[in-house]
């Protein structure tokens, strides 16, 4: 078992992701392509290798995902626009300092058009609602400098809906009545952070629940009595960082767990040791390590899940606390 993050190997793994055009699996995941690029780019930034993927090509690809009919981005050319892919597109362009390529007015209209009467956002015109989509919209509006369009009644309704999704255990679910889930907790807490309404969170109760996600093997699960999974390192830790409670779990044990899920030959990180790696878990594993103060990594902003330096430059930084970055031995 390896005790360090194999950065060069992971960089190579991420660079190679687009070399699989003769794999069926590559084509079965086109609906996640733009999300995949966001995960790859962000983890590269955190590992200090932002330039490992060609910038112009990436921006061109993002622009080719524009859905003219909807006025937003799909995950791949000729796919339909959705909030999930639109947020990824905006995050990529922001990271590449290319937000000037976006038709801000149309995207803002698209985002605002998806807010429903109850305050929650739909993912697209077919109307599926989920607290994830509220976060996507709030994050995207904020990155575009358009959060002001949500002032007043729209903002209050969005917050009210998130409050209704809060459970007695301090957590949040995907919809009113739904069970608390670490992923949904991240989106709700981060959305409240962007909207400056963290007082809606019951901090001692939620931080208790989050700290109980750590299992004896050091990994974190997403709900009581479920298995550990590397991606929860981010969902749980990001919420804890926003609540200034990262110290409530054992950082060393979690670090070892994430590192043990690396593929030491091919690069990349899996959901748990010995499983197939993917760019999603690679990104969230690296993101978790950054919040844990792993040496040599760049800071990750847990609210936006983007490089912290960039969010600070954009003037969007909210209050959060990660563990202090340890020095390289």
């Amino acid at each position, binding site marked *: 078992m390896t005790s360090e993050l194999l950065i060069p190997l992971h960089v190579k793994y991420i660079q190679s992701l687009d070399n699989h055009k003769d794999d069926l699996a590559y084509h079965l995941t086109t609906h996640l392509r733009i999300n995949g690029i966001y995960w790859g780019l962000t983890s590269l930034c955190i590992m200090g290798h932002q330039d490992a993927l060609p910038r112009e090509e990436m921006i061109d690809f993002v622009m080719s995902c524009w859905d003219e009919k909807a006025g937003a981005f799909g995950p791949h050319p000729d796919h339909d626009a959705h909030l999930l892919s639109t947020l990824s597109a905006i995050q990529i362009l922001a990271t590449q300092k290319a937000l000037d390529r976006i038709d801000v007015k149309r995207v803002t209209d698209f985002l605002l058009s998806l807010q429903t009467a109850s305050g929650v956002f739909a993912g697209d015109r077919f109307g599926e609602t989920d607290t994830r989509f509220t976060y996507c919209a709030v994050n995207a509006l904020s990155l575009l400098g358009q959060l002001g369009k949500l002032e007043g009644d729209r903002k209050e309704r969005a917050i009210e809906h998130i409050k209704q999704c809060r459970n007695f255990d301090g957590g949040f679910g995907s919809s009113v*009545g739904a069970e608390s889930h670490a992923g949904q907790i991240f989106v709700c807490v981060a959305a409240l952070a962007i909207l400056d309404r963290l007082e809606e969170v019951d901090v001692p109760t939620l931080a208790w629940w989050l700290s109980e996600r750590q299992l004896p093997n050091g990994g974190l699960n997403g709900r009581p009595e479920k298995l550990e999974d590397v991606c929860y390192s981010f969902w749980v830790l990001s919420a804890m960082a926003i609540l200034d409670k990262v110290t409530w779990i054992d950082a060393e044990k979690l670090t070892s767990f994430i590192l043990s899920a690396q593929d030491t030959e091919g690069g990349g990180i899996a959901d748990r040791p010995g499983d197939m790696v993917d760019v999603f878990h690679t990104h969230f594993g690296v993101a978790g390590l950054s919040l844990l103060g792993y040496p040599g990594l760049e800071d990750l902003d847990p609210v936006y899940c983007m490089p912290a330096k960039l969010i600070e430059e954009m003037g969007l930084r909210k209050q959060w606390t990660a563990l202090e970055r340890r020095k390289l031995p």
Partner: protein
Amino acid sequence: MHGVRRARQTQEAIAAQKLKEKEKLQEYLSLTNDVLHRKKTNDFTQEALALTTRLLTANPEFYSIWNYRRDILTEGIFPQTSAKDVNDILLAELSLTMSFLRSHPKVYWIWNHRRWCLEHVPDDQGQQTIAWKQENWSKELYAVEKMLDADARNFHAWNYRRYVQASMPGKYSDADELKYTTKKIESNFSNFSAWHQRTKVLSSLWETGTLDMAASKDEEFELVKQALYVDPYDQSSWIYHRWLIGKGEDEGILKREIQVIEELSEVEPDCKWCLESLCHYKRLLLASFTHNEDQRIALVDACQSLLSRLQSIDPYRRNRYLELGEF
């Protein structure tokens, strides 16, 4: 990728696999191109619909194709179809998606398509509409129970269940749902999803006065006590117990439950959940029911000694216990 084991393949094996896949890949790509082209040119024919079935069978996560399929139905097919046939088409959509869910129980897009189908039953047929809805929604409740039998923690299925119950004509009764959660919990005390659902159902039953809150709470404490004794190391029942206690407004209950847990803790001295809960409940007593300084000091001492024991038996959360000890 969740839960797929990593297998190290030789170069030869990979090449052989690719060769085998080649034909399948070509077929998939040309089908995708064909369907996306038709989508772009607003082809809303029966033929296009059949092609989306093929493509979605190969890849049920291709959400733009689900979108296209719904557009074909509403734009191309439904306008020239009788209300009864529309209902039949929607029923066929439901059985198609059920077969997809069996192999892909966690794909959001499939669950969405079912919602869309149920919401598009023709609305203008009077009694007939009501009969269709009744039948479709009860079938749906049955279908989601099957999904929960296969995986009792599938949150997609639980969310969908709540949605079905809220939408079906003639409200689904909370009393029935309470029975359902009892059944789920009794078959597995560790099913927190069912405990969670119970917190929602009971809140509603108490609020409406359907159940007497005091009597029903006592029964709940009995049920959860059984669970705690079966496996005191399982979080689910402890978290539920905490819900029952709430802010600890009732001094009598608080003291009674502290005693129950103290007895359990004597049998299970290393169980951190006993100690953690005792500490939490004693802090509630401290906050609301300390009648004199001696009592206060005794409670603080008790909490401190629980917290220091917790620090040693549950070191991962040591900093939390340290913080809680700052009275």
